[in-house]
């Protein structure tokens, strides 16, 4: 019998308290494990579950139940925020996640600023919040992780991304205003999730990478606005996981400036070394999603053991999972962590 429930264990590690072993999680959102095999077995399917809070809650629990991940994560996409901010969404299929069909604005100078509270009554915000409420009541031992699309990625989902990236240099004033506005909306959305019983918010911000932005823009935009959102969530008394995509090299020295309670990284980052260089960080990751998609039980298990052996604080996939990943591959990962 484990000393801690999955919820206690994750919250303790995020709070830098002692635990019996690392938790193994898959946060949801950009990194969700709503794989086709789970949906086919249970009949709780996407894309329907993006729009229906009962179904969303059921599928989110199915994922934890079938794969062994020690959290429940919602939603299953990165488009909830952009949709309420006015972008057109293609809701995707069973195997393919929703995506932005058309950004709402051609340029940062043309963004209309709306009242966050009014926005939050629209789109699928309430679906996610209701699903969180159901899950928190029904599964008190599991941590419910609410997922946010980070401020830079959300801004680049409402403004044409090519213009947006240029305007980070050419129209700084409006770029800052837009990202600040988006950050306020994200905090208000996080508050609704926390009020519904979410204890952990995971932020994925795939546009905010060193490879795309470079260190200067990362410092000027990514760090301050991520921190603004993190501070806002901390005020709500919830913990924050931040996932940084990409190789991270050019921005590595800034990672300790990000105030999240855990930093999750992509597979190419050497997490062990990151931890050695910045012992204050709580690290999360970073099992290759190709390895998981490959599905070889022994390979997955071996690499998972290495991560645990390296002292990685929270074991998780390194990136968004392929929806064709098998239950068996994910179980290889979760069982290995639990048996060690």
């Amino acid at each position, binding site marked *: 019998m484990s000393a801690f429930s999955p919820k206690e264990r994750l919250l303790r590690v995020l709070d830098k308290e002692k635990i019996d072993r690392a938790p193994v999680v898959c946060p949801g959102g950009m990194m969700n494990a709503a794989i086709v095999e789970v949906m086919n077995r249970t009949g709780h399917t996407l894309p329907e579950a993006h729009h229906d809070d009962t179904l969303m809650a059921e599928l989110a629990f199915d994922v934890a139940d079938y794969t062994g991940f020690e959290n429940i994560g919602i939603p299953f996409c990165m488009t909830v925020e952009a949709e309420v901010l006015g972008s057109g969404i293609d809701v995707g299929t069973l195997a393919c996640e929703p995506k932005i069909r058309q950004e709402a604005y051609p340029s940062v100078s043309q963004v209309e600023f709306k009242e966050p509270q009014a926005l939050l009554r629209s789109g699928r915000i309430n679906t996610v919040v209701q699903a969180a409420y159901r899950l928190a009541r029904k599964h008190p031992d599991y941590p419910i992780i609410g997922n946010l699309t980070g401020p830079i990625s959300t801004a680049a989902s409402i403004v044409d991304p090519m213009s947006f990236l240029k305007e980070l240099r050419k129209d700084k004033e409006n770029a800052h205003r837009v990202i600040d506005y988006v950050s306020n909306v994200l905090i208000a959305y996080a508050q609704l999730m926390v009020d519904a019983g979410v204890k952990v918010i995971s932020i994925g911000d795939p546009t905010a990478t060193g490879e795309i932005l470079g260190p200067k823009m990362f410092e000027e935009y990514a760090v301050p606005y991520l921190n603004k959102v993190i501070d806002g969530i901390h005020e709500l008394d919830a913990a924050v996981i931040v996932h940084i995509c990409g190789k991270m090299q050019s921005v590595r020295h800034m990672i300790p400036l990000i105030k999240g309670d855990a930093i999750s990284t992509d597979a190419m980052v050497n997490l062990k070394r990151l931890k050695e260089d910045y012992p204050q960080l709580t690290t999360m990751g970073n099992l290759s999603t190709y390895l998981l998609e490959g599905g070889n039980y022994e390979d997955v298990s071996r690499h998972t053991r290495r991560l645990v052996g390296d002292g990685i604080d929270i074991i998780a996939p390194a990136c968004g999972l*392929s929806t064709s990943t098998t239950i068996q591959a994910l179980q290889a990962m979760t069982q290995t962590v639990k048996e060690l």
Partner: protein
Amino acid sequence: MRELKAKLFQDLSDAVVDMDEEKAVETSHQVIDEGIDAYEAIEKGLAHGMDRVGELFDQEEYFIPEVLICSDAMYAGVEVLKPHLKGDEQGEKKKVVIGVIEGDTHDIGKNLVKIMLETSGFDVFDLGRDIPPQQFVDKAKEVGAHIIGLSTLMTTTMDGMREVVRILEETNLREQFKVIVGGGPISQSFADKIGADGYAANAADAVRLARKLVS
């Protein structure tokens, strides 16, 4: 005259590197006013500047915002010079059909590859993002492409790349086009596995690969 020409070419190149669209346009007009060859001005001025930008990108001095702004300056200059190109200077380019595979909304990397290829003298047909595999093949047939470039940033859409190669094989067109792949989750071993002709890790790599494959 020769000195002036060299100076204007240098100015064009610098305008691109300095992200100075206005200067690129102004200098291009000057090139025309002085009766200097437009083709040479593109080659030795604007494209030269973009080559330097590519190097700065390789060295991680410039990142995507910078490269995009530089390429705007380059294209602005090209727009001025283009009407003054002689007919035979506009054709004869190797053609590349490029796009982001179905299901994927990310096209930043693809746009970068497109810019770099165009700068390097390729004629690029950009299908955009979220493109079904069949459409790559159709477009490549239609324009008589030499290369099909496939990009993805998501593991979920990698299968679409395999599908393009499969369609080419089934329709006996595989030998007609070179298929190159790239994007975050792609690796050389994945390229080998699906039978692509090559893999590029970044935009500069894609240019080198494309040049090699059509030479």
